[in-house]
């Protein structure tokens, strides 16, 4: 007979109680992770409109952080501040700091091309280039000159494998990427970002144009990828935030209202406005 370890299970308190309150086990937050991105008093103005108000947040390394909130709340704007994508919008002014790995990305001497290589972005609608599957993934390494680190086919294969797409496209690498399904195109876009070896993945509603199966594949992929990358995702899908993220931040009218462990945000939010939003009582 196989010896089994003796497991003592605390009997549930339905038996005769000898009186007196016992401390019930409280949910424990997951172990603290080192911070990858920190913003402090971050404000963003579109002309005179203040779209982000004093956002101070610490985003954990190798975790998935979900940003939720109604349309126009600033969550996508915030996401774009993390790789300075807002810089290209005329009239945008930014105050405060965004620190990634101890470096202020709005500080002097920041190379934007290098920044966006380190902090890659996946958009709402898959946007493959009108070229072959191979060339889509090879595009970044070619312009960044990464191909010298290994052969280009190796980088393409590694990236497609990491994006869980390799098996589906390995026999059609030279076909046009535009012939792939929506879900495959989105994973191709993820592979394209991974090919330049980023550290942070920003995802702006990456599944909103996808069916549930493709969505499930991307979500599985995200959970696999967080081992190597720090992921920040903007989503309107509350269930998705619940399924994939470790931490969730709720934005409203440009403010970060509440930020914490996803389980806490979804089970016992502290702020009434968070509760109203995630329970759908928000007009």
């Amino acid at each position: 007979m196989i010896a089994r370890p003796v497991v003592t299970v605390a009997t549930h308190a339905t038996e005769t109680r000898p009186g007196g309150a016992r401390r019930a086990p409280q949910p424990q937050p997951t172990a603290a992770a080192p911070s990858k991105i920190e913003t402090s008093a971050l404000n963003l103005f579109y002309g005179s409109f203040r779209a982000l108000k004093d956002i101070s947040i610490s985003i954990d390394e190798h975790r998935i952080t979900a940003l939720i909130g109604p349309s126009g709340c600033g969550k996508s704007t915030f996401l774009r501040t993390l790789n300075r994508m807002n810089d290209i919008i005329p009239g945008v002014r930014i105050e405060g700091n965004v620190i990634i790995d101890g470096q202020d990305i709005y500080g002097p001497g920041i190379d934007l091309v290098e920044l966006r290589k380190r902090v890659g972005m996946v958009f709402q609608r898959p946007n493959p280039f009108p070229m072959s599957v191979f060339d889509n993934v090879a595009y970044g390494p070619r312009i960044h000159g990464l191909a010298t680190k290994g052969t280009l086919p190796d980088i393409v294969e590694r990236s497609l494998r990491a994006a869980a797409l390799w098996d589906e496209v390995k026999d059609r690498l030279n076909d046009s990427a535009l012939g792939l399904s929506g879900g495959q195109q989105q994973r191709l876009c993820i592979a394209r970002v991974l090919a330049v070896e980023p550290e942070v993945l920003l995802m702006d509603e990456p599944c909103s144009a996808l069916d549930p199966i493709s969505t499930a594949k991307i979500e599985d992929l995200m959970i696999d990828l967080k081992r190597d990358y720090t992921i920040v995702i903007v989503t309107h899908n509350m269930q998705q935030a619940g399924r994939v993220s470790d931490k969730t931040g709720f934005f409203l009218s440009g403010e970060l209202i509440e930020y914490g462990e996803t389980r806490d945000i979804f089970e016992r939010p502290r702020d009434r406005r968070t509760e109203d939003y995630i329970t759908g009582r928000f007009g």
Partner: protein
Amino acid sequence: MAVTRRAYEQELRALNQDILLMGSMIEEAVHLAIEALARQDVDLAKEIIEDDKRVDDLELAIEDRCLKLLALQQPLAGDLRMIATAIWVITDLERMGDHAVNISEIAVRIGNQPLIKPLIDIPRMAGITEGMIKGCLDAFVARDPELARKTCRTDDQVDKIYEDLFDELMGFIVNSPDTRTSTQAANLLFVARFLERVADHATNIGERVIYMVTGLRESY
């Protein structure tokens, strides 16, 4: 700000109402079961046994309502806690109803035999237990964790009476001159035990209410 999800709100309100209905049925069943025992009213006891089917039906209907809400509305935060609490609470209520039936069955069994002692402690224990049922249901309605805590703490009084009754009735069993006395003492001991269990289930409900309101678990 406009309130949205009206149909969902209505469903949650209906769930709340159903739980209150089930709670009041149980409160009544426990009360009447002890009354049937004390007054030796066999007809009333049989009625309570018969009525338990309504409680069981309502439990299934509420369970179904909760599962439908979970499946279709993806409740979160306070709504999620409320629905989880509902599922827990109806299980406790159903068990309390079963104990009311158990007590009624004993009332039928004792019938109109002369009682071996005047019933004093059992009705007193029942009064406190009924107060606990009412307290935990009021706490549920009012979303009042303090009332729930107070109700949970009352369980100690019930436990104390049970212990005293146990000693007293065991005395009857051990020293009884005839089997009729010892059998009735054993039956009354079971009644005390059932009431003690009802109070424990009321305590469970109180704990669930605390979780529903605060999101945190406390154990009594």
